[in-house]
């Protein structure tokens, strides 16, 4: 503690705050890490929300050209599905919704086009548990006899490639966070070595006056720690600002899937820990660098 007091009164390693490379490097690294981590966490949330939404979902399409027959089979399929064990909900997608879905391709006036291009009837089915191949087979065989035009698909199977891509992006973000952490450590290592060289005469004097390696390392560790904290806070604010801005832009898209990729309080808590992790990495790196250099002296 007395050594810390000494540092306050007489700064053994002269330093103008925010003048060396450490705070700026840490600020940039923390900002990038914050963005990468927020991206990774948002992608994880998005995948989790989409999986939860789709894991128990089935879509039954009645692909029948004759409107009356299509209507009949659809009504029958709904009533059959409603009595199947494990089905929580079986609901026809309203015609207005269907029209809205195909409107971008067929235009607003569906009167004539609707007659020429039959749009399948859709039934949204929600199971109490996840969709398995056995459940899928069971429902298909049930509908085959009564509604032969029915095509049954698990909703999650459509988005399997999307989930795979999201998972890859999530891992990419995690890799980026690790790489940025390692880059920060390398930058601090170089900065600490440079500071060590600049202050070599002072270090030798303190060493000969009986200063221990631990005492000298603490001076650098503390100095780098303060710089890293200043840089880390600035970087975190910058990164969080960028994340909030991007979040607002994605939210404005109004897409249900993107909306599932928001950040929760636990995510923000993890992001808030990034500058502190940066400070710890910087201090630890500085300490190891200085101790390694001091070990070469008697």
């Amino acid at each position, binding site marked *: 503690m007395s050594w810390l*007091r000494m540092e306050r009164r007489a700064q053994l390693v002269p330093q103008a705050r925010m003048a060396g490379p450490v705070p700026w490097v840490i600020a940039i690294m923390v900002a990038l890490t914050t963005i990468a981590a927020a991206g990774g966490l948002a992608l994880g949330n998005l995948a989790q929300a989409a999986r939860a939404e789709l894991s128990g979902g089935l879509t039954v399409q009645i692909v029948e050209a004759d409107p009356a027959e299509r209507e009949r089979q659809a009504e029958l399929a709904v009533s059959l599905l409603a009595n199947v064990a494990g089905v929580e909900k079986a609901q026809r997608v309203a015609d207005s919704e269907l029209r809205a879905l195909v409107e971008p391709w067929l235009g607003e006036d569906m009167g004539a086009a609707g007659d020429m291009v039959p749009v399948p009837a859709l039934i949204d089915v929600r199971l109490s548990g996840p969709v398995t191949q056995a459940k899928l087979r069971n429902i298909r065989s049930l509908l085959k006899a009564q509604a032969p035009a029915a095509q049954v698909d698990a909703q999650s199977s459509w988005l399997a490639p999307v989930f795979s891509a999201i998972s890859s992006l999530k891992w990419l973000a995690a890799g980026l966070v690790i790489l940025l952490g390692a880059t920060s450590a390398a930058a601090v290592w170089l900065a600490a070595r440079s500071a060590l060289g600049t202050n070599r005469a*002072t270090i030798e004097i303190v060493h*000969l006056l009986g200063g221990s390696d631990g005492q000298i390392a603490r001076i650098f560790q503390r100095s780098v720690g303060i710089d890293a904290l200043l840089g880390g806070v600035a970087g975190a604010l910058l990164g969080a600002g960028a994340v909030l801005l991007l979040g607002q832009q994605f939210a404005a898209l109004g897409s249900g899937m993107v909306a599932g990729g928001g950040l929760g309080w636990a995510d923000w808590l993890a992001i808030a820990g990034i500058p502190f992790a940066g400070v710890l990495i910087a201090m630890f790196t500085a300490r190891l660098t200085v101790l390694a250099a001091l070990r070469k002296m*008697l």
Partner: protein
Amino acid sequence: MTMPEGDIVQFDNVGLRYGAGKEVLSDISFTLYPGSFYFLTGASGAGKTSLLKLLYLAQRPSRGAIRMFGTDVITLPRARLPAFRRRLGVVFQDFRLVQHLSAFDNVALPLRVSGVRESEITRPVAEMLEWVGLADRADARPATLSGGEQQRVAIARAVIARPDMLVADEPTGNVDPELALKLLRLFEALNRLGTTVVVATHDLHLLKNVPESLIMRLDKGRLSDPTGALRYPPRRPFSRIEEEEAL
């Protein structure tokens, strides 16, 4: 002056070479007693500074054995060396002041390194600066001090922690005769309090001012024993300055 029992430093057949060069110190053997006052004399290049570097633990010898305060310091782990260095006060020939610290903070450095409380630092440092005549220069940085003033700061820093042994390399080289004598009296006062003092100097006039001192003489890296002061136990308790001058 009575010679205390035991020894504080013991060199046994010590040799020193830098890198692959020839030995700058050869076959150095001597014993320093607690509370004694030694002058280390010799021409420039005789090896005085190299011998002092061994004494203040800035250098390991190439061969031989060195014991300090009863411990073999050559085989001592690095982690234990700072504790030994804190028992030493050193006045470097080139002062080695920390340039960005004030005179006050330079003098306070050994106390702070040793973990002395801040409340117990201000007064002794101020008194020490006053004693060396630099009370009004306490806030000055070394670069703004004259050579003599820097030397006084270096001396104040060396003695502030009341070391067991004071090692001074040409400590009066940059000060006027009056101040040189005053600094010598400070060393004597410290010596009377029990500190072993080793002063390297080529100024023979200085030796006259401390009649009770023992003299070691270095010549081309070898230690001569002109006065019997280095024998164990010494042939005579004190050397004769006249004997040294006669040589």
